[in-house]
């Protein structure tokens, strides 16, 4: 079982490799990937250095090109594929079928992973991409229960990667336009959700307010911890219920305790979310997960998630709390 860790910068990549990641995934510095944030991601030189660093230590580098090429500049995505292939990456992570067709034709030896943004939640979808584009691996959206993951694994020859830890999308990845509804930019189109340039913080007599393109997302009482205004994680009013997390609390997914089951059902890789996070976060999370996977693989029957692992992960988790998300049925 591979541990796949995020890198938004060269120091983060080195941290992931040093702490035991099997694979590091990263993106170019543009809208071709789903973490298109200012100051983040890799230019040519950094990718070359990063790949050399990882390969020298027997680790892999994956490049996420997982947004949807927009009608007017498909060429930008094609050139990103070409650059990734030329730089010697171990795989590209794609969501768009047109782009997969291009990669398959131009770079037949380039390994393709189906991104979580491809919204493939069932074996019919995954096997379709396999038959048409020869994908080697699919990353599952964070919507399936454990039983559903197991059922799917029985019916596909494609390697399956699941999310293990990180900020949680409550919506099916690739099926959410909430951010563009409010700001004009969303993951599918621009590789961003609730983009920083649309965020405004205001101190008011009612409390500290966070707004996204003018829409009030949350309001904090004095002393209350304020989180980033991801629009689905704000507090709203519905009916007579006032001021509650109508969609989702700020929280992180953490599946450490499910590791033996994921291993037994044949999951090929565990993905850690957080290319937008610091090298310190990457180091901390990678270290814990490396130890957990090694412990689990050595003796799955005696494995249990150590409290110290959970505590150290909660410290870096969004909202400082965690959930099993959709893997645990009652969450739905």
């Amino acid at each position, binding site marked *: 079982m591979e541990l796949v860790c995020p890198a938004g910068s060269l120091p983060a990549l080195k941290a992931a490799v040093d702490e035991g990641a099997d694979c590091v995934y990263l993106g170019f510095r543009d809208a071709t990937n789903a973490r298109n944030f200012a100051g983040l991601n890799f230019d040519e030189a950094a990718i070359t250095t990063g790949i050399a660093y990882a390969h020298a230590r027997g680790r892999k580098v994956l490049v996420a090109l997982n947004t*949807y*090429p*927009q*009608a*007017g500049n*498909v060429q930008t995505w094609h050139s990103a594929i070409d650059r990734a292939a030329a730089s010697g990456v171990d795989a590209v992570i794609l969501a*768009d*079928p*047109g*782009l997969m*067709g*291009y990669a398959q034709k131009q770079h037949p030896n380039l390994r393709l992973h189906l991104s979580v943004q*491809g*919204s*493939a*939640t*069932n*074996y*019919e*979808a995954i*096997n*379709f991409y396999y*038959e048409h584009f020869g994908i080697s691996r699919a990353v599952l959206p964070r*919507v*399936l*229960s454990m039983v*559903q993951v197991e*059922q799917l694994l029985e019916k596909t020859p494609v390697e399956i990667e699941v999310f293990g830890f990180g900020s949680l999308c*409550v*919506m*099916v990845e*690739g*099926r*959410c*336009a*909430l951010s*563009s*509804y*409010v*700001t*004009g930019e*969303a993951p*599918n189109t621009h590789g961003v959700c609730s983009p920083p340039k649309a965020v405004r913080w205001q101190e008011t007599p009612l409390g500290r307010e966070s707004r996204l393109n003018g*829409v*009030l997302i949350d309001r904090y009482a004095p002393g209350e911890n304020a989180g980033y205004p991801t629009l*689905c994680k704000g*507090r*709203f*009013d*519905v*009916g007579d*219920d*006032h*001021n509650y997390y*109508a*969609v*989702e609390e700020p929280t992180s997914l953490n599946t450490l305790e499910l590791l033996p089951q994921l291993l037994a059902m044949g999951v090929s890789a565990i993905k850690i979310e957080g290319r937008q996070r610091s090298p310190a976060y990457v180091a901390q999370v990678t270290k814990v997960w490396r130890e957990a996977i090694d412990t689990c693989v050595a003796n799955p029957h005696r494995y249990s998630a150590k409290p110290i692992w959970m505590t150290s992960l909660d410290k870096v988790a969004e909202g400082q709390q965690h959930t099993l998300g*959709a893997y645990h049925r*009652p969450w*739905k």
Partner: protein
Amino acid sequence: MKLALGPLLYYWPRDTTLAFYAMVESAPVDIVYLGETVCSRRHELRLSDWLAIAARLRAAGKEVVLSTQVLIESGADVTVLHKITRNTDFRVEANDMGAVHCLASKTPFVAGPHLNVYNLPTLQWLSSLGAMRWVMPLEMSRDDLALILRERPANLQTEVFVYGRMPLAFSARCFTARHRNLPKDDCQFSCMDYPDGLLMRTREDESFLVLNGTQTQSARVQLLLAELSDMHVLGVDVLRISPQATHTLEILQAFDAVLKGNQNAAQAQQSIAAYLPGEACNGYWYGKPGLEQLDSIKQVAQAALA
């Protein structure tokens, strides 16, 4: 251009749904999309009921299309999908790639609005697999659509969502059940109490989103009426109206009147103003945030000059 009635996104009582589609039989609409696309727990109508409605609508002269569920998770969901895609009587709208897999190279199909077709190569690929029509993503702008339609594959129709609260997001979680502190597995079919969805407001009492079970919609209503002539020039073939609890017939009549030249867009817009369940918006069409409302007449005039 033809008028289409999109799939019913809400959960209405059986009799209400049957009465609604009885009304549609004589309504001015050419194409009707049928079936449950949101949640597999909804069972007021079974597939056999939908097929019976389909037969009546076809007898009334409508083109009928069966829509598949957008989020397919369980083995049972896949079984239902197979039943729909293997039917030999009616065309199918594929709303996820699993559905496309079942239809590709076997029978012509409609590529639904949630397949994420944002560019020409992907559209050409779907066309090569047998797509006879595609529904543009809600997020796509008029200018991007124009770029794609310039080189669109032959024999491929284009459909645009021109009216209704927009289905913006899908989840495994049910937000209507969550509102009532119920787990989804014991949701007590809460969404049936909200025939136009459950309004979610900001703490300034601004209507923001609408919770419709596992689907999240815009609170504002996409309304593209003044834009119809522009769409005609671009080569759009079909206009999708999304059903709502009341006055769907009047909405269809207004669009029909504009298409037939019996009313201009401004008159039609005036005639249905009171029937919108929320404020109007048209931002996506103009490449802006979807919730924005631009002055359509001015925008259309500018586009014509450009």
